[in-house]
């Protein structure tokens, strides 16, 4: 399971405030705690209206000093994503993201073609998120065709089939999983990821939706998530699910994560 730590994102109010106040220590703390919690990538999204690239440079610099993890450069502007790659030195990371929308792929794919960088690809296009699995799979095929053209192999792609808010669409997970199964069967080495918390938007006790979503999507073949790795409930469910899916011999990873105090009671005596 590849965990992309989501906390350094200016659209999260506390992080946004820290970015506005140039609060280095807060950003460093987010990088550190997500690293300790077992993240594989640190997502970095400035989410500012002006000077986005400068803010990305500042954030990435802090992350690089605080953590050995690769960066997942996150911006709605693909040009900012590729321009920020140079701040990552020789650390190969991810671009977050392209989609079937506009010329995003045309900007990102040529730049990462001859590198080892990976890329998150959302299954939406100029008309938004296709409501059906068929519609999203059509976007996926378009993305794959383009990736193939640039020699970007499936294992470098992190497909996010996108979740709609369950409160507004009761078939949200069903559609998501249909996409997951189709894509994984066709390209076993491809990664499937999800910024999964959107599924529970507008509902009370959101973790009661987020946690079973994680389980069901992992069971369908999702092998990555953009989430808060320091969330103890999600961590426990994540490790428990990996064990149940036969991906953890003798539950030793589960036990290790427990011992590393990533889930379970905080005070143990």
């Amino acid at each position, binding site marked *: 399971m590849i965990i992309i730590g989501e906390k350094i994102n200016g659209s999260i109010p506390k992080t946004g405030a820290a970015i506005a106040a140039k609060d280095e220590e807060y950003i460093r703390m987010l990088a550190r705690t997500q690293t300790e919690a077992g993240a594989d990538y640190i997502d970095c999204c400035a989410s500012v209206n002006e000077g986005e690239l400068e803010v990305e440079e500042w954030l990435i610099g802090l992350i690089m000093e605080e953590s050995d993890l690769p960066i997942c450069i996150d911006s709605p502007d693909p040009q900012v994503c590729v321009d920020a790659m140079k701040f990552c030195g020789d650390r190969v990371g991810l671009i977050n993201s392209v989609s079937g929308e506009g010329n995003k792929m045309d900007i990102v794919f040529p730049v990462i073609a001859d590198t080892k960088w990976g890329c998150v690809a959302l299954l939406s296009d100029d008309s938004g998120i296709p409501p059906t699995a068929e519609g999203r799979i059509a976007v996926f095929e378009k993305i794959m065709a383009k990736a193939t053209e640039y020699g970007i192999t499936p294992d470098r792609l992190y497909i996010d089939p996108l979740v709609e808010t369950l409160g507004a669409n009761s078939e949200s997970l069903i559609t998501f999983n249909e996409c997951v199964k189709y894509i994984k069967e066709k390209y076993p080495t491809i990664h499937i990821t999800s910024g999964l918390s959107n599924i529970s938007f507008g509902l009370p006790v959101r973790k009661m939706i987020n946690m079973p979503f994680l389980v069901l999507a992992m069971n369908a073949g999702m092998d990555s998530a953009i989430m808060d790795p320091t969330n103890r409930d999600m961590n426990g469910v994540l490790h428990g699910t990996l064990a149940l899916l036969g991906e953890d011999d*003798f*539950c*030793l990873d589960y*036990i290790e994560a427990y011992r590393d105090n990533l889930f379970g009671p905080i005070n143990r005596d």
Partner: protein
Amino acid sequence: MALLDDLREKTMKGKRKETGPLVQQALDEGMDPQEILDAMIDAMGIIGDRFTKGECFVPEMLVAARAMNAGTEILKPALAAGGTEPLGHAVIGTVAGDMHDIGKNLVRMLIEGKGVEVDDLGVDVAPEKFVEYVGAHPECKVVCLSALLTTTMPSIDATIKALADAGLRDNVKIMIGGAPVTQEFAEEVGADAYTPDAGSAAAKIVEFF
């Protein structure tokens, strides 16, 4: 003894692909087979203690025992050649009507870790089987009985009575355990010892040799 420290560490961590080669290396360097065995027995003892204290978990015991087995496979010929005697002999089984074997297997592994040679009769073992075994193996000094259900606890009683009826009760010590079993029950059925978990069973059994 860096090599034996390494072996101890790898056994505790359940690295079964590494324990065999380490044992072989130790033998190649001319170390005493008993000393090599003791390193692994130490490791299992530490794991057993941690388990008793709730600091380690069932799968960790299983992989540690598996790693030790991988080591002892390599060590056996050398031990036999050196004439090293086991600490003693015991027999273990889950009683009639009961199919649970995880706890029984853990006890067996930790007892083996103490250097005891153990025959495992498996699960759902009828009283007559224990009688037959003890009759045929005068070297066997301890009988370990496991029951995981309140409904199969009476089979412990029946097994002890069957041994008594066959005139074999005084030849052996009887240890019992399993989730519903208590010290009180042990006294009631005339067992020699009750232990609440695998680690304490292994610590107890050595007193009987």
